[in-house]
């Protein structure tokens, strides 16, 4: 056999190693690997881990920022323009959750969030008459859709906190997959979506925080799903030994009792986010979940007892 180099001219012989090096360097530069970064979104830390070439990382960051900036602009608590397509679309989801949860999911709890000081972090225990007054401004049924816009009764305030972050994660994950990212996760303060395989080639191992101690109560092994948790330990204050947290029962105006945490797993992070908020105050969560057959809920009640409802996802209880 004639050696390959022997049939090349001397000039070409010199060129060959150079070309080889160029290809090698180019190959190294474009070889996919795991990249992690963190951005701030809705005042929470958003972790991102993606498998892509180094040259694509900046593009994914740009896409994440684009999506999250838009979500923040449309759904911040003081937003007065309720006519955007994004607002109307997410309101459709809110309306469905409100109906399916018999009113336990309600985006109009803004006056309660404000009254209890959760919006400004100036926490206070309101007087019963203040709560009664605030409840007059709560009720999603009072929201009207008119001429392509939501119309609120005077004094009403929307709180998209139980839905918008999850939706942002869904949109961002979709945008990254459109960029060709086949493996990764986006985790915005516990609302997350993961897809493809993890760095070890397995399903993503998602730890569920224990509501009362350091560590996890269980570990999910999942992919292609969203996960969200609502817990009484996330934002709360204590007064006279009583814990007052940020998940309100829209029917009483007080923080919901009976559960420590609710984690929901399913195809859409927005619905996981909304369902975890809806199931928290509801005394019969299984009835709500029956309407969402692709979703599962891991519920820790106020005694610390764990229940798993709905569709079965691989879960290791610790």
């Amino acid at each position, binding site marked *: 056999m004639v050696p390959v180099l022997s049939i090349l001219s001397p000039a070409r012989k010199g060129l060959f190693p150079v070309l080889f090096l160029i290809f090698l360097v180019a190959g190294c530069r474009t070889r996919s690997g795991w990249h992690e*970064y*963190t*951005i*701030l979104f809705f*005042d929470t*830390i958003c*972790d991102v*881990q993606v498998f892509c070439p180094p040259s694509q990382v900046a593009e994914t*960051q740009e896409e994440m920022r684009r999506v999250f900036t838009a979500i923040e602009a449309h759904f911040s608590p003081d937003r007065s323009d309720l006519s955007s397509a994004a607002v109307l679309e997410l309101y459709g989801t809110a309306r469905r959750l409100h109906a399916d949860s018999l009113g336990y999911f309600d985006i109009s709890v803004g006056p309660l969030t404000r009254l209890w000081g959760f919006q400004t*972090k100036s926490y206070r225990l309101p007087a019963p008459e203040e709560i009664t007054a605030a409840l007059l401004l709560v009720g999603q049924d009072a929201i009207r859709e008119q001429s392509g816009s939501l119309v609120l009764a005077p004094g009403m305030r929307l709180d998209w906190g139980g839905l918008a972050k999850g939706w942002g994660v869904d949109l961002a994950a979709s945008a990254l997959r459109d960029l060709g990212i086949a493996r990764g*996760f986006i*985790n915005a303060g*516990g*609302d*997350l979506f*993961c897809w493809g395989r*993890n*760095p070890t080639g397995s399903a*993503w*191992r*998602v*730890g*569920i*925080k*224990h*509501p009362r101690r*350091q*560590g*996890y109560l269980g*570990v999910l092994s999942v992919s292609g799903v969203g*996960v*969200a*948790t609502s*817990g009484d330990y*996330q934002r709360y204050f204590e007064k006279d030994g009583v814990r007052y947290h940020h998940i309100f029962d829209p029917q009483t105006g007080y923080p919901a009792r009976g559960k420590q*945490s609710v*984690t929901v797993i399913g195809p859409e992070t927005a619905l996981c986010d909304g369902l975890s908020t809806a199931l928290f105050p509801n005394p019969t969560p299984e009835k709500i979940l029956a309407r969402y057959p692709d979703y599962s809920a891991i519920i820790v009640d106020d005694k610390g*007892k764990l229940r798993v409802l709905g569709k079965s996802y691989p*879960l*290791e*209880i*610790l």
Partner: protein
Amino acid sequence: MDRRDFLRFLFASPLAAPLLSIPQVEEAGSALYLIAADPQDYLPTIVTEMEKRGLIQGTRFSLREPHPFAGELRAALARKGWEYASGATSTSLTLAYQPLRRSAPPSFALIRHGRVWDLRTRELGKLWREMNGRSSPSACLTVASFSEPAPLLSPGRSAAVFVDGKKRDTLSLKTSQVRRYRTLRGEVLIRVEGGKVEVLASSCRHKICQSSAPAFLTGERIVCAPNHFLLAIDGPRFVDTVTG
């Protein structure tokens, strides 16, 4: 049966030797061998003592094979707060039944990592005496396999410093140091000492970052949102990401 006799019986007897190679014992971190005709009277007390010593984590148990006292064991453990789960679900306690070919006096022993652990605290010493005084010899051997408490949170190796979403530094937690970081909105002063990292001072308004406890476990964070500043502990990971 004397404790030493029981162990000799357990390891030397060809009848009991197969017990040491049954899969559920190998998988588990430790295994309790209990010879008693009425295991439901003793097992909950032993399990409670192991919980106190941190040898068991979790509240779910399962039964691998049919056990003659399955119903009684389930009820007795339920009274202590244990929840029965089917074999398909992960549990921290698995009970198995192995009949002995000949009866032996009541006894128990804990084997952990191939070593015998002394469970004769005051409470279990009393139990030991009670067993020998009350129960008759039995061929009922109950093997209780305990999964090890998983190392859920391990100490981290380094602290990653992010400013405005960009990684600015990676600081080893082994090296004591004080660092000052300028941010777009002010500055943050941090200290690494004794394997932990903390915020000493910050230009932010509410100083939440400054009042955060020092971080040292993998995955722990200290955030200063106004300064867009984040400290994240890196190290061996038990999970990929966390919800909650």
